[in-house]
């Protein structure tokens, strides 16, 4: 370690949806490394201290080294010439970059989707059906005397959800922190989060909906068949006790993970949980909150929603945004083999999408923006190396509770930001479209 160091106080970690903004980073300016990330959790420490400026080409076109400018030209040509271009990802970049990506999709009449569709997309659909009683994380810290974690493993996925926001911290009306809270964990397996809970309820896989619906009935004083135990693995008296606790607490919070959205029932599960929280407001104050994953996936939801009216799964093909999960969501478009070009920003679908989707991705021209080598980058026709948000670039990110935070970068990167690359692509696309007389909305689709 060199002597040439600086400290960046109150920096923000963008690894998970907790978006903790209390990092004190020690930066070695000669080595271009963060040597210490005070206050970071295990994930945050890896995010900061493993970050190195790898010597990578600014861009690769068909595997050959190229400049960013050449990459921009190639990307713009692909997007303008495609019949069904799709844009996907966006959860690990700034809102400023997300805004440019939306503008590109609007210009080319393309498809726009974010990692929300494979994260809490079903919770978004449920939200449209039932609404949501929710709160900022500070409100949970200040007031919640009952916290129920459902279908998630915060100890491993969002460690500081426990320590900074929802379980341990002292708050305005919770002077003794953990001692003043009763914590419940509901899951199909006993995860490393279980020891933190006062009560662990283990249910059979795929029965979340039944358990939630039974709780709704119990909360409303309705009879529930004791056969529920055989179906779900949870005793009726356990559920009755939980229902009673929920009705009699002062301020309750249900924090739920993808254990609900990625399994049988999907949006029905999230909807049942949101409805339960709503029902409980007839008795006390109760909130629910999906525990969001990637650093700025909540920002993506916000930007896409304010720009189009819809959170994800959007198509601009008719000159205006339409929303249709299942139709305009990326896994579906790829698995059906419909997209003919893809702009992938700050995500790695080839690493975690279902096999049929990945197979189609390999067949079409793919443009990738990523600070690091990725599985998708390996199959890309145009791959840009960009600067890492929060470490090398500033910008805005949204915490899982919709609180917007401004980033404080630690040191400079030689690579451009996602925002810069996307802005350049947008400008070039606009020129190409103007040249081809396609600048306006599709004439045949103009609505009265």
């Amino acid at each position, binding site marked *: 370690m060199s002597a040439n160091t600086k400290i960046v106080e109150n920096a923000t970690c963008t690894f998970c949806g907790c978006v903790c903004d209390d990092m004190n980073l020690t930066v070695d300016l000669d080595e271009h490394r963060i040597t210490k990330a005070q206050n970071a959790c295990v994930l945050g420490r890896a995010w900061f201290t*493993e970050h190195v400026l790898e010597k990578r080409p600014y861009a690769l076109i068909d595997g050959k080294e190229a400049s960013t400018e050449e990459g921009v030209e190639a990307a713009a040509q692909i997007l303008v010439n495609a019949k069904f271009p799709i844009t996907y990802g966006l959860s690990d970049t700034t809102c400023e970059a997300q805004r440019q990506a939306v503008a590109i999709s609007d210009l080319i009449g393309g498809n726009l989707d974010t990692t929300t*569709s*494979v994260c809490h997309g079903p919770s978004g659909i449920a939200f449209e059906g039932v609404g949501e009683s929710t709160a900022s994380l500070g409100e949970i810290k200040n007031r919640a005397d009952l916290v129920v974690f459902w279908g998630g493993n915060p100890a491993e996925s969002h460690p500081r959800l426990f320590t900074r926001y929802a379980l341990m911290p002292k708050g305005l009306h919770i002077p003794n922190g953990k001692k003043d809270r009763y914590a419940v964990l509901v899951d199909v397996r006993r995860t490393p989060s279980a020891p933190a809970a006062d009560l662990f309820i283990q249910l059979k*896989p795929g029965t979340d909906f039944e358990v939630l619906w039974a709780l709704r009935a119990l909360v409303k004083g309705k009879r529930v068949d004791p056969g529920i135990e055989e179906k779900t693995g949870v005793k009726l008296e356990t559920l009755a006790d939980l229902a009673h606790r929920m009705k009699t607490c002062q301020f309750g919070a249900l924090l739920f993970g993808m*254990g609900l959205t990625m399994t049988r029932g999907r949006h029905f599960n999230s909807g049942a949980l949101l409805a339960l929280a709503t029902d409980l407001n007839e008795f006390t104050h109760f909130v629910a909150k999906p525990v969001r994953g990637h650093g700025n996936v909540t920002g993506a939801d916000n930007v896409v929603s304010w720009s189009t009216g819809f959170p*994800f799964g959007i198509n601009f093909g008719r000159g205006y945004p339409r929303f249709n999960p299942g139709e305009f969501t990326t*896994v579906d478009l790829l*698995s059906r083999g419909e997209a003919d070009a893809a702009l992938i920003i700050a995500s790695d679908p080839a690493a975690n999408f279902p096999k049929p989707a*990945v197979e189609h991705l390999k067949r079409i021209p793919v443009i990738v923006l990523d600070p690091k080598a990725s599985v998708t980058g390996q199959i890309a026709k145009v791959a840009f190396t960009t600067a890492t948000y929060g470490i090398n670039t500033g910008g805005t990110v949204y915490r899982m509770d919709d609180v917007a935070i401004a980033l404080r970068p630690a040191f400079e990167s030689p690579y451009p930001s996602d925002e810069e690359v996307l802005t350049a692509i947008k400008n070039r696309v606009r020129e190409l479209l103007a040249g081809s007389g396609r600048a306006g909305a599709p004439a045949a689709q103009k609505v009265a």
Partner: protein
Amino acid sequence: MLPETMLLIAGRTSKQGTSLNVGKLKDEYREVTSTVEMNALDMVRLGLKEGDKVRLRSPIGETVASCKSRKPEDLPAGMLFMAYGPPSGQLMAGDTAGTGMPISKNLVVEVTPVSA
């Protein structure tokens, strides 16, 4: 030996989280995402030792992963857990039932020990 049907849950772990910062094309990430956790008693029954390889097969595809045992009270019999990654993607179907979300938890898979 006949394949056995089990339920696979894919999810996040801290190791998967930290390893992807090191790099997705690095060994650590590959190792983390091709490890499958199994109930210890199931492993005994199937004659599997720590680190032995099993083939997981779904109607969509298949992958090979190394076994890691979990206490029966932590992971019920017949259940498997894997960190997200390219191997778990091999087993997932593209259909989303109109939601955009593929099923990655509670996938029905056939498990066969791979002889070394």
